[in-house]
């Protein structure tokens, strides 16, 4: 039911999807772009803790700790060690840690959003922000289709294995793998999509009436707190 299938959607903190989007934006702007010196060396790692905490509230304990450890290692490497590293592999390590400190928090924030938000909540959030149906409908369809494509892919893979179409050996070689995996996947997905369109149209999709939404979301105490938090960080970023 959530954007990213798998695991429960229950969280200790009930946060409106719009707030989550705001926080994602905050983390995104600050972590990817800014420098890591001066004041940033202090507020950046603090901000990086946000996804960690949120993931914990979302019961994604393993993900939270894996993130925490990797980020900590990357941060330390980037700040203190990369100056002293030389030689091939070490340069790659330095580069990777530098990139990780920037992208990892955003990725985890995105994961938090996807793992703890139901599709219907997300759509409701977008509609409340007056995002056009031309964006909302494709987004809903997209989230509905990711698991489907995954299922289809697994089934096609099984069929391929059974008929003896394998990587190397088997019939055909690399291009064949591609042809036998991707093409049937696209065809099967598109067929489902066509059937879905027909069914959705017969249920009134595409009418001129404004669509309503049967999902209730709203701002609460935690949202206000999060907004304040986010604003503080943005201020720090722009002022320092």
């Amino acid at each position, binding site marked *: 039911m959530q954007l990213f299938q798998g695991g429960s959607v229950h969280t200790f903190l009930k946060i409106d999807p719009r707030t989550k989007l705001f926080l994602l934006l905050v983390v995104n702007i600050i972590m990817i772009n800014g420098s890591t010196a001066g004041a940033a060396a202090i507020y950046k790692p603090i901000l990086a803790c946000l996804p960690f905490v949120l993931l914990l509230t979302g019961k994604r304990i393993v993900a939270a700790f894996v993130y925490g450890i990797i980020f900590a290692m990357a941060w330390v490497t980037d700040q203190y060690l990369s100056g002293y590293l030389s030689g091939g592999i070490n340069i790659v390590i330095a580069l990777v840690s530098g990139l990780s400190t920037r992208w990892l928090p955003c990725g985890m924030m995105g994961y938090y959003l996807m793992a703890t938000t139901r599709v219907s909540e997300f759509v409701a959030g977008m509609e409340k922000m007056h995002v056009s149906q031309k964006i909302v409908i494709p987004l809903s369809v997209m989230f509905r289709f990711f698991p*489907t494509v995954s299922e289809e892919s697994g089934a096609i893979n099984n069929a391929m294995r059974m008929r003896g179409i394998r990587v190397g050996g088997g019939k055909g070689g690399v291009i064949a793998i591609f042809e036998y995996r991707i093409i049937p996947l696209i065809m099967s997905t598109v067929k489902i999509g066509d059937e879905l369109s027909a069914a959705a149209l017969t249920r009134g999709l595409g009418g001129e009436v404004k669509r309503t939404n049967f999902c209730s979301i709203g701002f609460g105490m935690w949202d206000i707190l999060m907004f304040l938090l986010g604003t503080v960080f943005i201020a720090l970023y722009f002022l320092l």
Partner: protein
Amino acid sequence: MGYINVPFRNSVYSAVLSAVMEDKMVSIDNVSFTYGRGECDNGLKEIGLEIKKGETVLICGESGCGKTTLIRLINGLIPHYYEGKLSGGVLLKGKQIHKLPIYETAKYVGSVFQNPRSQFFNVDSTSELAFGAENRGLEYNEIEKRVIQTAEMFKMEELLDRSLFQLSGGEKQKIACASVSVCEPDIMVLDEPSSNLDITATEELKKMIGIWKAQGKTIIISEHRLYYLKDLIDKVVYMQEGEVSKTFSGDEFRDLSVSAMQSMGLRPLELEDVVKSKMISLPTGGAELKLVDFEYSHKKGGRDALKFSDELVLPKGNSIVIIGHNGAGKSTFATCLCGLIKKFKGVVKDDKVLKNKERLSKFYMVMQDVNHQLFAESVLEEVLLSMDKPDNKTAEEILSSLDLLEFKELHPMSLSGGQKQRVAIASALASGREYIILDEPTSGLDMKHMKEVAQNIRSLINTGKTVFIITHDIELIIECGTRVVHLEKGEVRDSYVLDQKGIKKVWKFFQDSREDNVY
């Protein structure tokens, strides 16, 4: 596209007409239609049909006769979604729906399609129930009221607020029906709704149709599988090659003899007749297949897990039918048996032990969803792909035995569902492998093609191959089964020969399933 040669009717005339037509829910007046792009269903030739308010009408006929086209005419998909040349008028409660956009027609007609997997727009069941109402712009409170009412009416409260990806096919179809019901249309059309459902789920479907009937809705169903509708039908329309060939009242249809039904190419209305019919000779020969330690589960405590307590010994050279309720472990059994599951630790002994990898090349499985296993550019290629030594002549013979030779140059994905199923079966035959597993091979097939498949299975076992068939199609079982394995909750409930006694057991299972309502 979509030319309409209906004489001009001014609004006064049509208002009067509406008043007169109120009793006639659906009026199809001299309609002809040809698809713009080659579709597999026939077009329609000068169809005339009238359906009264509150009638439950069955549309039947062989594959490709035009049943689906007729349904699409009524729910507005023709001519707006499926383009082509349309002449004649379709009136719903006096309104000319071929002139209305689909979302307008949707106010009067609810549609349920055959594939439970491709009908849902949302990810969770409650949103899905609300979908139609949301599209109409109904208020939150109104939607809530209707959703709860509908759930109560169909007794499906425990299906609310669940992820649609975790529901069984039957549960999904229930949601599909309920979802359409929320908007309370007067007319319901269903296009082969039981195709992908097992016996229990089909009974649930029958109940839902019964509820609609009691509400006074006009119901139009196109179907191959007729038995579950026996008591519900008021009128029957039999189609052939795009024309309405015969119409019957419900009673007339119920009185038809078995041979009359057969000559129309229809599946029987009363299955007990089938059960009493002929029997095939049972193969002799002692070679055996031993299945030991068959235990597996995709997820801890998941559905469809396997836990055989004893070893299972099956005779080779037989057509072994696997029956059981939803979640009994049939699919898991099939995928483990043919070697697809790497983590599976069970042992399969022929003369020697067959490991997972070896089994992959000895077993051939035709899966339930045929779209996953057609890879080639032409039907002929598809069959040749299965052969170790590609041989056109043999391939064509196989195609011919399944009535597919005329399609040999066509792309497999361009065929109809039933035709695709047969192509998949043809590939299995061509593989020449010793063990063949068929998962619901006849789910959408009409009688003629079901018999062809049965014939092919019989020839397979005559050449010494062993065929496993997962099915709930009792006619298929009678036609070609020689042995039954009954699975329940991952265990082997029973394993028996399909002699007279065995047939009685299968029939009992079938009847019990219709009363149980156990998923």
